[in-house]
């Protein structure tokens, strides 16, 4: 059963990649564009920090560390969940009906149908940035650190993914949700790049409890960088990312199911 779905996932994703490679030039240009934009953003970050030296007590290396960590989670989320970018197309064009007549779970089918490899270029850039930042921050590689880092990246990817899923699901009520998803994607990406201590309390609470992107970079970084900056939140939050990811996974999936039930009773 599980093997069947893994195989099917790779077959469907492979079909998408092959379709995409029919337009090689556009594929190549988009990869190139992503890498360039990443480098520009990093340059901007460097320029800003060269002027201000530190951000709320965070050094350049530490901020780049946050940026690299957030960007890694972001790029994995974009590779695996890019179909959620414009999920509303499924409803506007009636493509969801085509999904519902297949003997596979709809969400699985939708996700597998588009695995966007252009974001691999972003992931590779992020890995490079992250490795350099890791080194600059003076963190020593141990097995514990490696495992914690991997769990953090995985949890971060999941947290970002579930936020995307929730905003895409809104389309099952409103028909359109593309703009909301775009907004949420860029907002979460920005929010993970800087220590949340730069924001007022209300925004910090929002980023912790409502759109929990602070668990993608900020709280886990407390552990990795040994910052000990908790802003009055429990210290346990530095280990909270996997729990938050699981809770968000359940919440977003239940939301998706109720959206689908609504679609079943109203159609498009």
């Amino acid at each position, binding site marked *: 059963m599980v093997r*069947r779905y893994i*195989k*099917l996932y790779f*077959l*469907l994703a492979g*079909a998408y990649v*092959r*379709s*995409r490679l*029919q337009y090689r030039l556009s594929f190549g240009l988009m990869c190139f564009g992503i890498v360039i934009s990443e480098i520009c953003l990093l340059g901007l970050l460097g320029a800003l920090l060269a002027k201000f030296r530190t951000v709320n007590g965070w050094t350049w290396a530490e901020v780049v560390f946050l940026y690299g960590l957030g960007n890694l989670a972001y790029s994995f989320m974009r590779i695996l969940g890019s179909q959620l970018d414009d999920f509303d197309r499924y409803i506007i*064009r*009636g*493509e969801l*009906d*085509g999904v*519902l*007549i*297949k*003997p*596979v779970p709809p969400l699985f089918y939708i996700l597998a149908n588009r695995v966007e490899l252009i974001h691999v270029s972003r992931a590779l850039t992020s890995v490079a940035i992250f490795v350099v930042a890791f080194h600059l921050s003076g963190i020593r590689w141990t097995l514990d650190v490696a495992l914690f880092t991997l769990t953090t990246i995985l949890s971060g990817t999941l947290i970002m993914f579930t936020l995307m899923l929730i905003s895409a699901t809104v389309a099952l009520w409103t028909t359109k949700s593309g703009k909301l998803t775009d907004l949420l994607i860029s907002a979460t990406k920005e929010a993970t790049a800087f220590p949340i201590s730069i924001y007022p309390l209300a925004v910090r609470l929002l980023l912790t409890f409502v759109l929990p992107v602070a668990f993608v970079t900020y709280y886990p970084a407390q552990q990795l960088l040994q910052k000990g900056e908790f802003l009055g939140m429990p210290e346990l939050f530095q280990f909270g990312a996997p729990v938050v990811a699981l809770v968000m996974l359940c919440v977003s999936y239940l939301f998706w199911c109720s959206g689908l039930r609504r679609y*079943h*009773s*109203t*159609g498009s």
Partner: protein
Amino acid sequence: MPIITVEHLSKHFKVYRRRTGFWGNLSSTVSRKHDIIKAVDDVNFSLERGELVGYIGANGAGKSTTIKMLTGILVPTSGHIDVMGLTPYRQRKENTRRIGVVFGQRTQLWWDLPVIDSFELLKHIYEIPQNLYKQNLEFFSEMLQLQPFLSTPVRRLSLGQRMRCDLTAALLHNPEILYLDEPTIGLDVVAKEQVRQFLRQVNAERQVTVILTTHDLNDVEKVCQRLIIIDNGKIIYDGGIDDLKKRYGKTRMLIVDLAQAYSDIQLEGVDLTRRDGNRIWLAFDRDTISASEVIAQLTARYEIQDLTISEPEIEEIVRRIYELGVH
């Protein structure tokens, strides 16, 4: 035992009324009033295995809504559906394994990939055993002459070729029921004929039960044995196609452009059904009066610029049934 049983099936949609203007908009977000649209209203029918049924009606009559409930996409508001012992919306996955669906307007194939790749993917999605897959692919490629374009990307196929591929895609997993939503829409005469012949053959040789919705009465005449007509969500006719034609389909329509707008038009054996400036629509029964007789009468009394004869369209037959009632 019937393969599909539908009892007192209804589907109602809430349509929210929007008021215009700023205050109207504001108040409709606070208290939304809605109308209930009865897309499908107390529909009953049952199909035996191997039947070939045309499900027709005007736009918005409730055809697609019924098909969507039968395929498990929509949950009925009330009523009962039994498809091969399953309730489609509750046992969606089991149901989809045993049915095939073709949407005429939307292809289920992978747009940028060669046709054969779509078939291969469907093999895995439906878990079709390799030998059955090979056997079916051979059978359909030969029947529909797919061989020349099996390795062509779907986006480069003509509409007719694509429909043939979509039909194959829907049948590879040996479904017991095939639902077709307007399979001949946009096709030329030759391609339409191919699709019709294919459907008859699949039905005869593989005992696939076929339900098709269409706007083209020719599809129904050439393919179906039985016809269900739905209008405003209610079934207004369910029976043999010959019976229907005998009763309602004898009417031909003569559309005439007169040289001037005659105030009073008098013709024998002919009904003046519509009039728009100099153009008039005349309905006549071909058993009682021939087209040439009608034209002779016309030319004798009026000056004519142009005329065309049209076969009865589904909309026209539905309208007549609706007006006259079913006897």
